[in-house]
């Protein structure tokens, strides 16, 4: 079974530029998550999708971050304009979200390391 795919693996940009990350979850997984992991910290949830609908985006800085999940499969996360403090690893995860089930295991991709200069 193929895992969660993410691209690119690395990205270096200058502040005020824009950047986009792509995620392809495990086939059949209904729920998709984007996390931000700043160096020395644990991942922090930015946004959660259930199929193509947003479940939780309370931690997403909406003035500069946006995300979409068209057709309930792939997802993109965009930052525009980027700030120095956006330097982090951006992790995508998916879970099967069985009907009525809770505590689903989340499966993570390899992440994208973003450096903002």
């Amino acid at each position: 079974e193929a895992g969660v795919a993410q691209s690119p693996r690395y990205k270096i940009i200058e502040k005020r530029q824009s950047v986009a990350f792509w995620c392809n979850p495990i086939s059949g997984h209904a729920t998709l998550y984007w996390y931000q992991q700043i160096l020395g910290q644990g991942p922090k949830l930015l946004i959660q999708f259930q199929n193509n609908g947003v479940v939780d985006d309370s931690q997403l800085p909406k003035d500069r971050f946006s995300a979409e999940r068209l057709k309930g499969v792939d997802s993109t996360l965009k930052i525009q304009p980027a700030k120095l403090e956006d330097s982090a690893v951006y992790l995508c995860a998916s879970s099967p979200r069985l009907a009525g089930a809770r505590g689903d295991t989340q499966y993570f991709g390899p992440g994208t390391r973003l450096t903002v200069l």
Partner: protein
Amino acid sequence: AQTVTQSQPEMSVQEAETVTLSCTYDTSENNYYLFWYKQPPSRQMILVIRQEAYKQQNATENRFSVNFQKAAKSFSLKISDSQLGDTAMYFCAFMNANTDKLIFGTGTRLQVFP
């Protein structure tokens, strides 16, 4: 709000020995899930072990086991017969049963020496 605390920023252990990583959490919920994830230098978070709060029996997964103390809100990870491939960051995480939101601790860097 739920919080997860990992008080050991770094740990080291010799190959084949046993090491225990600590984790405490704070919640007023009664139904939740706890996880340990491993993050090697490749950055990919890999599930090590999962525990349902309503189960009293401690979860085990081969060389990995947990000591779940619900009253003390403690969830430590024991790695037996440590291997060089266990070298990684280990994150403890909490999930409220009513949401899918994972709340992570700050991690413990484990180094296994030959």
